[in-house]
């Protein structure tokens, strides 16, 4: 039988606010345990929450970024359950009236096509603390620094059909939230965490199969592997005559498998009700419009513009728009050299390669966009040839000069295009290579094509790489053919 998978994701994004969603404690990562848990975060008797404006603004920006409806009123509810990392015994969340209504995210697939994934809604909530299971004489330690960090939970429709699509969706979200600057998107520090809902059904069937939820998958790679494993598991299970049970599972990256969380399925009953300590959040139209006007160009629009207006390939457009720093760098290079294709080649070629070798992020590149742009200008106006350009690039990388021009000057890399000078060098090479010239003369046309490379190399060497290779080629051919 042919099977198809149906996948939906709940992605929790930590918002990049300075302070917590309901208190003035810092959200900085990595502090000593409980040093950033204030009275409100600890849920001390008598404390009350006050909503952070930046968290609201960021949620709305996300909503605008996915063309979602932004309801005028949203309401915080309490989700009641006991857990040691949940100080108040309830999580303040938005169950019935989320801040962001339905929207959609465009994802780029490997074959160069795009697909729209519908977002059901996105809501604000507070993060919980962390349980540390190191050895405290058989006890668990609780660190509440993370408690109260603002989260935007983005709930998709079950619109994805494969692990690859799911990953493309998370990558698209990642690039939207980092473009907007509303999250640092640092998955290793838990800034984006996913719950994945997976079910399978025979191809063509309308009704959905029973789904399993895989909790807390925290990297692109694990999302892909966890889903692939889970699809496989469900298909095998059904084909063996079994039934998928609705349950929560955990992905174990070491074993590369999903496991059922102990079926303490006492059917959670969260007793949601409107939080009486918080009032309805009402967004006036002017506020939303102000946020809309300040939105940056988002990845999907950028990709389309790179492809349609700059004439880049779909692949280049997609890579160069994938992160905001990358796109900004590329655009700055392009603006300074006025050649989008050359800029794209350099950013993805020489620069990306070197960044990769030294494991640097584009924002930490030692070569600035203006420097690279300046270098490309000298390539396109033929001041230097390609080989010299690479030398200049490495010199810029190593900080040997402030601009390409300075380095070209200092190293004498200016391309030699003076025919007389080139002819003189050719004559010298021919004079120094009687054996090779004799062989050339005797060879047929096909072989000559290959043999000329030797002479070109010698001439380039003589010019210390500055001779214009096309000119060298043409002149050499002329001279040798006369020999």
């Amino acid at each position, binding site marked *: 039988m042919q099977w198809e998978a149906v996948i939906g994701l709940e992605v929790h994004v930590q918002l990049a606010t300075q302070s917590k969603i309901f208190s003035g404690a810092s959200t900085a990562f990595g502090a000593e345990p409980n040093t950033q848990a204030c009275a409100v975060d600890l849920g001390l008797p008598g404390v009350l929450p006050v909503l952070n404006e930046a968290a609201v603004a960021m949620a709305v920006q996300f909503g605008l970024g996915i063309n979602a409806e932004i309801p005028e009123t949203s309401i915080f509810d309490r989700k009641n359950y006991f857990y040691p990392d949940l100080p108040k015994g309830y999580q303040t969340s938005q169950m019935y009236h989320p801040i962001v209504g339905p929207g959609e995210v465009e994802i780029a697939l490997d074959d160069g096509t795009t697909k729209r994934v519908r977002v059901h809604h996105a809501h604000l909530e507070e993060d919980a603390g962390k349980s540390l299971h190191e050895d405290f004489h058989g006890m*668990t330690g609780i660190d509440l620094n993370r408690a109260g960090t603002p989260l935007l939970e983005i709930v998709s429709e079950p619109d994805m059909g494969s692990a690859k699509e799911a990953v493309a969706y998370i990558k698209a979200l990642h690039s939207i939230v980092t473009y907007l600057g509303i999250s640092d998107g640092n998955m290793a520090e838990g800034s984006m965490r996913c719950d994945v809902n997976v079910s399978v059904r025979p191809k063509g069937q309308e009704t959905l199969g029973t789904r399993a939820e895989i909790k807390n998958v925290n990297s692109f790679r694990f999302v892909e592997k966890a889903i692939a494993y889970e699809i496989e598991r469900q298909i095998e299970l059904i084909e063996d005559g079994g039934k998928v049970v609705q349950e929560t599972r955990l992905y174990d990256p070491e074993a590369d498998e999903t496991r059922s969380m102990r079926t303490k399925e006492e059917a959670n009953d969260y007793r949601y009700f409107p939080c009486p300590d918080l009032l309805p959040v009402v967004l006036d139209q002017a506020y939303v419009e102000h946020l809309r006007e300040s939105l940056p160009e988002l990845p999907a629009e950028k990709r389309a513009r790179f492809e349609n207006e700059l004439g880049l390939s779909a692949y280049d457009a997609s890579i160069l728009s994938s992160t905001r720093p990358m796109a900004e760098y590329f655009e700055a290079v392009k603006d300074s050299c006025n050649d989008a294709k050359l800029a794209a080649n350099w950013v993805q070629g020489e620069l990306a390669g070197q960044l990769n070798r030294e494991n640097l992020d584009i924002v930490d590149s030692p070569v600035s966009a203006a420097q690279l742009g300046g270098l490309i200008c000298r390539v396109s106006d033929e001041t230097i040839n390609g080989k010299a350009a690479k030398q200049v690039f490495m010199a810029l990388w190593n900080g040997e000069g402030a601009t390409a021009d300075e380095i070209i000057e200092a190293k004498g890399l200016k391309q030699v295009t003076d025919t007389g000078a080139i002819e003189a060098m050719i004559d010298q090479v021919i004079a120094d290579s009687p054996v090779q010239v004799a062989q050339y003369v005797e060879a047929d046309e096909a072989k000559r094509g290959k043999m000329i490379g030797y002479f070109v190399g010698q001439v380039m060497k003589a010019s210390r790489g500055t001779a214009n290779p096309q000119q060298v080629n043409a002149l050499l051919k002329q001279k040798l053919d006369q020999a």
Partner: protein
Amino acid sequence: MALEQEDVRRAAHLARLGLNDDEAERYVDDLSRILEMADRLQAVDTQGVAPLAHPLDATQRLRADEVTEANQRERFQRCAPAVENGLYLVPRVVE
């Protein structure tokens, strides 16, 4: 709505309140009478009446995103029953 001992036990579990059998029995009786009183609400026609969560029709004020709280761990943990290395301790949580 009638209340069974099972309902009381379920609520007690959700609320993490330990109850012995005698207490459970007594609470069935108390709670039944309270709910019986609450059931008077059922007779009211509330069609089209919006629930009222807050007595004033006010809206949420927003706070500027500023860090205003300093570390007060030592002070806050003075009233904690069990801490070590700055962490609150609980019996082992099995995930």
